[in-house]
């Protein structure tokens, strides 16, 4: 089986890139191919890159509180391109928001403090198309 390909992305104006870089390295160490978009992307640029790169999962890192607005827009932008790439969200996401995010099509949510194996497991599970309810 070919290695999983994951696009990790920062959407919007949030410049906190410690988490996204750590997660990128964790995934790479687990044998996953990782592409990083860089900062200040829009939902459209992320969706376009994900489709172009033919990735299995999109990982969004959001720490500014804009996840309720921007994460669903990424899902919509992916679907608008006729793709069904699962979107996993990590960062500062309160428990209260998780249900609504699932309803908006987010495959899984990783809260602060998630250990490496859980990150890898969540991404792998999402790639297999299974929704996982993962709280903070």
């Amino acid at each position, binding site marked *: 089986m070919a290695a999983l390909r994951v696009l990790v992305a920062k959407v*919007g*104006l*949030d*410049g*906190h*890139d*410690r988490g996204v*870089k*750590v997660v*990128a*390295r*964790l995934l*790479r160490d687990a044998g996953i191919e*990782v592409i*990083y*978009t*860089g*900062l*200040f992307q*829009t939902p459209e640029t992320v969706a376009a890159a994900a489709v172009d790169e033919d990735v299995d999962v999109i990982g969004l890192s959001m720490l*500014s*509180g*804009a996840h*309720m*607005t*921007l994460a669903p827009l990424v899902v919509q932008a992916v679907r608008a391109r006729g793709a069904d790439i699962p979107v996993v969200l990590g960062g*500062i996401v*309160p*428990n*209260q928001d998780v249900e609504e995010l699932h309803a908006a099509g987010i495959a899984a949510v990783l*809260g*602060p*403090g998630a*250990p*490496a*194996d859980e990150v890898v497991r969540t991404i792998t599970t999402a790639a297999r198309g299974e929704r996982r309810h993962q709280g*903070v």
Partner: protein
Amino acid sequence: MSTGNNGRVSNPREQWQQAFEESRLRGDGFQTMSGIPLEPVYGPADGEFPGVYPYTRGPYASMYRSKLWTMRMFAGFGTALDTNLRFKEIIKAGGDGLSTAFDMPTLLGLDSDDPMALGEVGRCGVAIDTLADMRDLFADIDLGNITTSMTINSPAAVLLAMFVAQAETAGVPRARLGGTLQNDILKEYQAQKEFVFPPRQSMRLVRDTVAFTANEMPRWHSISISGYHIREAGSTAAEELAFTLGNGFAYVELARQAGLPVDSFAPRLSFFFNAHIDFFEEIAKYRAARRIWARWMKERYGATNERSMQLRFHTQTAGVSLTAQQPEVNLIRTAIEALAGVLGGTQSLHTNSMDEALALPTEKAARLALRTQQVIAYETNVAHVADPLGGSHFVEALTDEMERRAEEIFARIDEMGRGSMLEGCITGIEENWFQGRIADSAYELERAFNRGERTIVGVNRFLEGNEEDNLDILKITNEDERKQRERLSGVKSERNEPAVVDALDRLAKDAVDPEVNLMPALIDASLAYATVGELMNTMAGVFGRHVEVPTI
């Protein structure tokens, strides 16, 4: 050793004694709870003393016996009116300095109606688009009588201009304004990543604000050289120390190149450090910072005013040390970190709220964070004696080791800049050297956590109680975003459009000539209600925009 009044060489204790006797004290009869009288400082006569070069033990001879640290709580969310209410709450609760957090669009110089601002308006801080918002933000607060800190970097010159415009409209002359502009653009490229213009063009704006405040705002701190974000981005303590002071040396060289004598601006530079959870390492870091700064300012940059050599700093407890699991435990972490800041001799302190790994703090959580400082200040008596850990074999050795590690990094930066710390910092940014080191250190720490070598209570050990987490958290709705956009469109429809166009034209012209200071053009444009976005876009038209090459 220097020469005392009577011409003889005096030892450090005598120098300290003289400075101490000249200091005004906030009280007398400092003693322990059971009545043992306490000296202001302890140590052998020929050792280091606070208020005496190289200031390892503190910038002032009397330290907290003259004045406790400023309990400066950072706040800002939603609209300017919301934050204004929080400010008044902080003043009522006994806080004595305001610290303004701006939202992401403002930090990046975008207006609230910019498409990129979607979902971010008023979320991580207050949204400021025009002078009208500045007026709301400081309504009924006497800016001549309180110090105001503004955490803003890329658009720092713009926000300073709006602040001056607001204060003067309200009748407070700029010379009376006290406060701090963060204005530390180098660490944005290295760590926090809220950049707009390319590094060299950004440094021109820094130069303009330093020159402007040196000439016209004697009470203003033009740059708060910040290690906080470098540490939050994942650096080690020694890297935080060295990158921050290295940036400080770069700003000193920048201002000197602009023709400012070192003692004309250096006394107004201040620092901002993290207080992380490794208690003694943090204290050693602050002590080493003071000693290094004093020596470099005196020996390399020729400062003669002692205030240029005395490093003063603000501290914030470590946001990254907070956990979403069992969030009440964050109160304990924050208390320990705050104590490190105080024992390390900080001049002001922000304590994080227990709910900040989840959201922006609720009013109750923010009040508890302030109470933490009040317990340290008024119940523990730890502020009675300056540098109480000075002389500990352990703390002194750790201080020396932090200094040694920092010097190794300075040598590398100096080498990258071929003898210039300014060029070294810019080159290091352009070559991703700082960014790479920070990412490496962050990853190392994460691996230690994943291997179980690093314990985080409630996260990888002691998990009982995690399922009970149910803290009330602050909800910010998109309603604020809608209100702010309406506010902006209202201001735009009422302003004198030709005056805005003229003011922006002048700004563009001034920006083309690198010798011109942009502050006067920015203040005039603010008074004409030009928006933050318009001012930044006008400058970007001349300066260009910075794009970071993404690296993992």
